[in-house]
C-alpha cells in the first residue's frame, strides 16, 4: 500500500519514490536523532558555572574574555554569574542546597572558605598553589591543604594628602602620637562641627570596619587569642595595649567628619576623593578611584602603614582568590583554573590594576604586568605595597586571621562585629577603655 498524499495520488511507490517502509524508517531515524542530540551534546561539551564577586566592569570583561577563549579552545562553556560580595556566600550555599552547586567561585572572606571546607564541598588546590612563591601569609593552608588560589592582597593602607602635609610642614608619622597630631593639624572646623576631617576610620558594625579600623591596634601588638586559643584580649599587657588603642581612637574620632557610624567601603574612598578628609584607610582601589574621579588628587597622595605608640607599624588586610567546588565537573573546573592562572592571570590582575595587588611574587617581574601604564605611573606606591608583604618590619594581621593559625573562631569574631562594637562603646557609649576591652573579650568567649 502506498502513501496517501492529500490532494495527490495514491501511489505504490509514493511521492518522490518513497515507500511506506522507507518513510517510516526515515521518520524514526530523524526523531531518534533529535531525541539523542542533547545526550550527544552533553557528552561532547561541558558547562561550568562560575560565581564571580569582582563586579567592576573591567574585571567582568576580563573574566568573560578568558572564558570565551577557553570555550573556543576546549569547547567547555563557562557561565559567569557576577554578584556583589555581600550575599555571595548565601548564594553559593543556596546553590549547593538546590543541587546546582557552582563549579568555581571567587572568595573574599576566610570565613567563607572555611565554612565550605567544613561542609566538605571544596576541592584542595594545594598542588596548584605550591608551584609559586607567595607574599607573606597569602597562601595560607588549613588542615594541611590550600583551599583557594589567591590573586591579591587588600592591604589597608593610610592614605594622606602630600600637598596638605607640605602646606602644614608635616612629616609622615612614625608613631601613633605623631599621626594624631597630624590629624589634628589637618582638621578644619566649621563652628563646632568638623568640616574637613583629619582622618576617617570606620565605626559601623560591618565588614568595612572589621577590615579597615584596626591597623593601629595591631601596631600596638594587641592579640585576640593566645597560642592555645584562649581569649587574650583582656589579659595582662594585652588589655593595656587594647585600652591604649581605644584611647587613640577616641582622640582620632574628634578629628573625623560626622557620620562614621554609617561609613562603609564606598564612603571611605569618597570622603578622601572629595577632599572631605585629609587621611583615609583603603586598599589600592582608592588609587583607581582617584584616577577615575579626581585625577588631580591622584598625583598628590602618599601611603604609609598604621603606626603604634612605640613606632611599630602594622597593616590590616584581606585576601581574594579562586575556589573550586566538589561537583561532577571538578576535574574540568581544575583544568580551567590551571589554564586561567597560566594564561589569563595577568590580564585578570590588571582589570583592577592597583586593587589587585599581586600576592604571587613572580608577577612583580612579569613584563606584561609591569608595563601597564597605570602600574608605571603609580610604581612607587606599588613598590611600597610590595615592601609591606616582603618585610617582617611591618605586622600584617586581620581580625579574621587572628590567633595561632587559620581558624573559624576569629572569623566568628569578625562576623559578629565584636571589635566594631568595642569602638562604638568607646566613642558613642562613652565607656572607659578598660571596660570596653573587658566587654569585647567576654563577648568573644561567649561566641567561640
Amino acid at each position, binding site marked *: 500500500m502506498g502513501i496517501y498524499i492529500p490532494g495527490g495520488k495514491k501511489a505504490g511507490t509514493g511521492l518522490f519514490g518513497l515507500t511506506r517502509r522507507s518513510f517510516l524508517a526515515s521518520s524514526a531515524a530523524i526523531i531518534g536523532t533529535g531525541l539523542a542530540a542533547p545526550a550527544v551534546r552533553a557528552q561532547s561539551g561541558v558547562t561550568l558555572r562560575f560565581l564571580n564577586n569582582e563586579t567592576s566592569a573591567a574585571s567582568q570583561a576580563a573574566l568573560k574574555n578568558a572564558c570565551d577563549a577557553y570555550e573556543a579552545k576546549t569547547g567547555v562553556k563557562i557561565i559567569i554569574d557576577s554578584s556583589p560580595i555581600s550575599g555571595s556566600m548565601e548564594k553559593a550555599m543556596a546553590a549547593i542546597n538546590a543541587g546546582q552547586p557552582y563549579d568555581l567561585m571567587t572568595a573574599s572572606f576566610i570565613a567563607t572558605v572555611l565554612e565550605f571546607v567544613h561542609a566538605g564541598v571544596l576541592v584542595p588546590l594545594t598542588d596548584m598553589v605550591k608551584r609559586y612563591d607567595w607574599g607573606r601569609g597569602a597562601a595560607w593552608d588549613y588542615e594541611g591543604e590550600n583551599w583557594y588560589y589567591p590573586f591579591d592582597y587588600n592591604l589597608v593602607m593610610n592614605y594622606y594628602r602630600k600637598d596638605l602635609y607640605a602646606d602644614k610642614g608635616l612629616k609622615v608619622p612614625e608613631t601613633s602620637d605623631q599621626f594624631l597630631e597630624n590629624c589634628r593639624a589637618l582638621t578644619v572646623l566649621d*563652628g563646632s562641627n568638623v568640616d574637613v576631617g583629619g582622618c576617617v576610620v570606620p565605626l559601623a558594625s560591618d565588614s568595612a570596619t572589621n577590615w579597615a579600623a584596626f591597623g593601629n591596634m595591631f601596631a600596638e601588638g594587641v592579640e585576640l587569642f593566645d597560642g592555645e586559643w584562649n581569649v587574650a584580649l583582656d589579659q595582662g599587657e594585652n588589655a593595656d595595649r587594647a585600652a591604649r588603642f581605644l584611647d587613640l581612637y577616641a582622640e582620632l574620632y574628634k578629628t573625623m567628619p560626622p557620620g562614621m557610624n*554609617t561609613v562603609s567601603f564606598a564612603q571611605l574612598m569618597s570622603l578622601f576623593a572629595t577632599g*572631605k578628609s585629609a587621611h583615609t584607610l583603603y586598599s589600592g582601589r582608592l588609587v583607581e578611584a582617584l584616577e577615575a574621579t579626581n585625577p588631580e588628587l591622584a598625583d598628590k597622595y602618599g601611603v604609609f602603614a598604621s603606626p603604634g605608640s612605640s613606632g611599630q607599624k602594622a597593616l590590616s588586610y584581606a585576601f581574594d582568590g579562586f575556589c573550586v567546588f566538589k561537583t561532577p565537573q571538578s576535574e574540568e573546573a581544575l583544568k580551567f583554573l590551571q589554564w586561567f592562572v597560566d594564561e589569563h592571570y595577568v590580564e585578570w590582575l590588571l582589570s583592577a590594576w592597583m586593587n589587585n595587588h599581586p600576592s604571587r611574587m613572580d608577577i612583580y617581574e612579569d613584563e606584561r604586568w609591569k608595563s601597564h601604564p597605570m602600574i608605571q605611573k603609580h610604581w612607587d606606591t606599588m613598590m611600597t605595597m610590595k615592601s609591606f608583604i616582603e618585610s617582617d618590619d611591618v605586622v600584617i594581621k586581620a581580625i579574621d586571621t587572628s590567633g595561632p593559625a587559620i581558624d573559624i573562631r576569629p572569623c566568628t569574631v569578625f*562576623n559578629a562585629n565584636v571589635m566594631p562594637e568595642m569602638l562604638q562603646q568607646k566613642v558613642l557609649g562613652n565607656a572607659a577603655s578598660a571596660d570596653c576591652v573587658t566587654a569585647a573579650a567576654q563577648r568573644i568567649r561567649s561566641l567561640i
Partner: protein
Amino acid sequence: MVQDWRIVTLFIGSILVLGAIIGGPLVYAIMLSFYSAKSFVGELQWVGLANYAKAIQDPLFWHSFANGLMIALSAIFLQVVLGVGIALVLNRKFFGQSVVRAVSILPYFLPTVVACLIAQWILDPNYGLLKSLLSSLGIGIADWSSHAFTARGTIVLVSVWLWTPFVVTCVLAGLQTIPTQLYEAARVDGAGPWRQFWHITLPGLRSVLVVVILLRGIWMFNKFDLIWLLTKGGPLNQTETLPTLAYRKSFLEFNLGGGAAVATISFLILAGVMLIYLRLFPIDDTKQER
C-alpha cells in the same frame, strides 16, 4: 454542583500553593530553631530548646524586642493620627481635590530602598541637602546616626512618610461609607466639628481603624528592610529589633539555629498580641456590640 467542585479545587490549589511558599519555609525555620547549624551546608546538630533558652537569656533579645515595640508604636501612632487628619482634609470638597488625593498617595508607591536612599541623601552629615540648607543659615547638623534618639526618630519619620498614605487611603474609603445625614442631623442638634468627629466620624471609622492598626502593627513590628537600610540596628544596637537580630544571627554570624529561634519567638509574640488585639477589638461590629 460543578461550580462547588471547581471552588473546592481552587481552594485546595490555593492552600497547596500557600503551604509550599509560606508553610514550607515556616516549618523549616521552626525546625532549624531546634538545631545548632553553622551554615546552610553544614551538619545539623539537635539541641532541643537550647537556642530558645539562649535567646531569652540574652539581654540583646529583650532590648531588641523593646526597640521594636517602641519604633512600631511611635510609627503607628503618628501614621494613624496624620492619616486620619489628612483623610479628613481630603474628604472635603476643594479645587484640585482629585489631584491632591492622587499626589498624597505617591510616597506609598516608592520602593523602601528608594525612600531610604533619599532619606540618607537628605540627612548625610557631610554632603546632605539638610546640611547645605542649615549651613546657609549658619546652623550645624548633628550626626543623626550616632545617637539612639535621632536614629530611632529617623526610622519612625521615614516610615511615617512611606506608609501614612496607606492609612489615608483606607480612612478616606471609610469616610465615604458614613451617611451624610448623620452630620446634618448633628448640625441641627447643635453639634460642633469636634463633637461630630468624636461621635460620628470616629465610630464610623472604627472597623477601618481596627484593620489598619492591625496591619500596620504587623508590618511595623516585622519591619526589616527600612531599619537595615538606614541604621543596620546601630548605633550600639539602639535600633536593633527582633527581625534585624534574627537576620544578624542567621546571615552575618551564621548561627542559623539562634536566628531561627529569635524569628520563631518573634512570630509567637506577634501572633499572641494580635489574638488579644482581635479579642479586644473585633473587626465585626456586631460582635463588638454584643
